[in-house]
């Protein structure tokens, strides 16, 4: 499960940053890859659609220090999926 979540998240990040898919790894820093707040809004939309989750507003935007790398996004998505399943 975890691996496929990671793959899907990285695919979505690659699509929006227009980076080659092999260049996007869990260590990829979001800001340095050109992810600005508007792009983040589109990424969030795709993640919510793909995983059928709801990402709370406070997780959004550049003010959120937790989302620094692609791995942080994967972690967040996994957390939300788990929450959804236990709810």
């Amino acid at each position, binding site marked *: 499960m975890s691996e496929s979540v990671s793959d899907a998240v990285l695919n979505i990040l690659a699509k929006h940053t*227009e980076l080659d898919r092999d260049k996007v790894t869990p260590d990829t820093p979001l800001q340095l890859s050109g992810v600005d707040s508007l792009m983040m*809004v*589109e990424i*969030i*939309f795709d993640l*919510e*659609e793909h995983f*059928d989750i*709801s990402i709370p507003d406070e997780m959004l935007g550049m003010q959120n220090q937790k989302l620094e790398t692609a791995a942080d996004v994967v972690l967040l998505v996994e957390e939300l999926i788990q929450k959804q399943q236990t709810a």
Partner: protein
Amino acid sequence: MSRIVITGMGCISSLGHTCKDFSSKLMKGVSGIGPITLFDTTGFRVKVAAEVKDYDELRLFPEKQLSKLDRYAQFALIASREAVADAGLEFSGPLAERTAVVHGTGIGGQTTQELNYFKVYTQGMKRLHPFTVPKLIPSAGASWISMDLGITGPAFATTSACSSAGHAIGMSMLMLRSGIADVAVTGGSEALITYGTIKAWEGLRVMSNDTCRPFSLQRNGMVIGEGAGTIVLETLDHARARGAAIYGEVTGLGMSSDAHDMLQPLDKGAAAAMQAALSDAGLAPESIAYINAHGTGTPQNDPTETRAIRQVFGSHADKLVVSSTKSIHGHTLGAASALEAIATVLALNEQKAPPTANFQDPDPQCDLDYVPNTARPMPITHAMSNSFAFGGLNTVLVFSRCND
């Protein structure tokens, strides 16, 4: 008061993606009306429209831009890029600040609105794409034109149904005359050949189910078209100073409202706008040689417009040449006054009145010379373009040759 000239034109319509395509089909009377292909018309009474053809948005715009760019705004951009290139203008520094963008639309991002609401209302979609709002707002076209071309002066959209672009051109004229701007990129855009919208128009009972035959006895309604038209207006001094090629002068603006009905047109309101345009241009009715009519092809509009023309022009009405090019490019609503302004300027430049296509037999209630089916070479010094919108919002523009 500054004189105002046209130095650039651009358009996309059912006649093609450029002004050149528009011009050649317009003068030959080759109609862009055909079966609707943008959605499945099963169960529709109305199955025809004037669609923009051979159009692939993915080939024209980067995919990332398309998430924020409705079809209507794409058309606005295409027409405006062509018009500005045609005018030979590039915007930076003081010129960018002294240039206005005024671009009309009747509805705005209707495709975006409809497809997205369909998803939330009927398909259980939990969320909409984050750029749905910036994509559907009716000022998106004006924003995209200013961003794309780097124009930093006043920019906004006008909306008044079928007169939207007429009001846009009118507001641009007033800004240039008042000295607020030296250049204006202006016109209108519309793209509403969508399932829900055509259904809504069908309900009005004003739509033809075969083709548009303005002023003809056999007319049975209007045909919706899509597209955009943009003209570049400049003060004569500004255009001369940079040695720009000039298509003609826009000499008169007339605006009025019927204060009557949301649907029924009123001859008095239309006549008032034509009269106001003539006074604004300082011209006698006898100076006008050609009128590009509103001419929707509905049973109501065409006799009303004919009566209004007779009221304003008196005995000169029998010498006037009047045509409705909606028979060729369809009724493009918020883009109509812009495409028809271009048609009128082409008539001045080619000294030829474009025809009313699809004309069959004359209607006794419509007793003017409507240039049936074949363009007519003739001297034209001053020409008028009429737009009379639903809800009685009227704009009339007068264009003149600029020989001095």
